[in-house]
């Protein structure tokens, strides 16, 4: 069984984000990169499947800049067998990323039985690469999965929907699944795992190698800006009983005209 896991490298949640001066992206020089947290659930699920099917091979695939291969090395230290990296700038759009992932998967020469990814990346929060990838491969796909069972070629997944309800799907492999928190508890990379990961194969490709060009770009980023700082909250003094009526109508008025919530 060939399992592919798409992992993205994202800025550590504690990173202070600064847009570049031309607004086309963010400053990346001093960023500490981590594996996208939702992708950890995908890696863990792949490794759980591998535990149950020791013959399975788990390949992690990433599209992004090479300077730091943290996410791929971490996945291999957790137990993935090999890795593929498509060298690209970190501000590609979802369509190009999906196309590059597809190209990298095909380059391995292995037919995927299962493609796992996180439900979203915590940097751009686009929530669409797994779905685009499934469409490109013409495979069934379920996102936001929080439950997984496998029986031969049949996969039963639980998907979280609004209001905490669960949808249950039964699919036959090959499938593309986008994983959510709660699916499993990602393991740590162990120290022996880190040592072993050094010897695991990491294939590198350019965007051109996997058939992606500038013409594939559907979205171009032009104006990265920090969100405006929140203005300080307003305080109303209602300790004087005689004035309470007046204060309340003032608050209600502002909620109508300024906050526009009622």
């Amino acid at each position: 069984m060939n399992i592919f896991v798409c992992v993205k490298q994202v800025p550590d949640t504690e990173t202070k984000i600064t847009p570049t001066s031309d607004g086309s992206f963010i400053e990346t020089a001093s960023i500490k990169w981590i594996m996208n947290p939702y992708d950890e659930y995908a890696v863990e699920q792949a490794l759980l499947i591998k535990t149950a099917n020791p013959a399975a091979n788990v390949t992690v695939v990433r599209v992004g800049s090479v300077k730091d291969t943290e996410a791929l090395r971490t996945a291999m230290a957790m137990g993935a067998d090999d890795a593929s990296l498509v060298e690209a700038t970190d501000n590609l759009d979802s369509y190009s990323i999906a196309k590059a992932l597809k190209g990298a998967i095909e380059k391995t020469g292995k037919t995927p039985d299962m493609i796992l990814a996180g439900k979203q990346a915590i940097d751009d929060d686009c929530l669409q690469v797994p779905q685009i990838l499934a469409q490109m491969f013409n495979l069934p796909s379920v996102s936001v999965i929080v439950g997984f069972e496998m029986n031969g070629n049949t996969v039963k997944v639980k998907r979280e929907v609004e209001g905490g309800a669960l949808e249950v799907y039964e699919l036959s492999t090959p499938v593309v699944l986008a994983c959510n928190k709660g699916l499993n508890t990602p393991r740590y990379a162990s120290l022996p795992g880190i040592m072993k990961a050094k010897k695991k194969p990491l294939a590198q490709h350019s965007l051109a190698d996997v058939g992606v060009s500038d013409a594939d770009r559907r979205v171009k980023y032009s104006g990265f800006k920090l969100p405006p700082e929140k203005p300080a909250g307003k305080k109303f003094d209602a300790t004087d009983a005689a004035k309470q009526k007046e204060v309340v109508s003032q608050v209600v008025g502002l909620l109508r005209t300024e906050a526009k919530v009622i």
Partner: protein
Amino acid sequence: MDFSLSTEQREIRELALKFARNEMTPHSQEFDEKGIFPTDIFKKAWELGLINTCIPAEYGGAGFSSLDSVIIGESLAYGCMGMNTSFMANDLALLPIVIGGSDEQKKKFLTPFTEEFRIASFCLTEPGNGSDAGGIKTTIKDGGDHWIVNGEKMWITNAGHANLFVVYGTIDPALKHKGISAVVVDPKTAGIELGKKEDKMGHRSSDTRGVRFNNVKVPKENMLGKPGDGWAIAMSTLDHSRPLVASSALGGAQRALDLSIQYSKERVQFGVPISKHQAVQFMIAEMGMKIEASRLLVHKAAWMCDQGLKNTEIASYAKAFASDSCMQITTDAVQIYGGYGYSKEYPVEKLMRDAKLIQIYEGTSQIQRLVMARELLK
């Protein structure tokens, strides 16, 4: 000269820090308050390969360098200095075997620690002999086909949970240092009596006790080296263990700095975050400077071990400087937190209590200065 860590060392540090933040820090306050021994966390750290870093690869260990082990030590202490004392005590106890044990003893005593989760204690200090370890009174007498150990040990970390003791004693007190010998003892042996758990100022999640030995029989083959080799083994152990203990001070100090930076940017007094007041800035600057200097000393002391260079002097610099700095830095962290720093609701008062011990065990800050002066003036 190259100050950078290898890719592997950076990954090891990331893993250990992630473990420290996720598994240790969330429990550190409660375990300290209630004096809970961190068995599950200890075991989990062992499963990840973060414990017993001194065991060589040929006996089943990961084959870490001393530099690797201080990187791990600093990271775990960042999570909780108290829990890390228990973790580190395993290395302190196993090091004499790594250094003074025969091939057979290493296979017999070290390898089981790589196969299952086990805890060890290093038994040197006595009620009447701490700094003056050469004057220990516990006796190891020849009983024919075994050794007989008699005496009392004090302040033994992990004693209540240990699967193995390394015990120092003397074959003849009149011989002074030349009589000191070390034996590996099974804590379940008849005649061993554990004292009550000490009620300590800090490191309250680590287990510290007195241990009494009443005619305890120890197999002949459990002596490390020959009778009288104990002092040399102990001194060589210290050259390896002091950088490790210093690294724990470094981890605690780094946590105090990170918390101070965060708090000082949030706390507003006189209309601005207190980080804008120069008096606060200077405390933070001092912390950063001392941590960087401590880290360079700790890494150098460990690197010298790895190069096979005699590091006694540098190891003492590292131990004294890092622990004295940690005391100052954690005290200033409480200062920066103001009244809140003095409360158990906030994390810095514990750091200040924990820092104190590192100036005391594994040779007090005064004893380190004795060692330095001896090396410098000889």
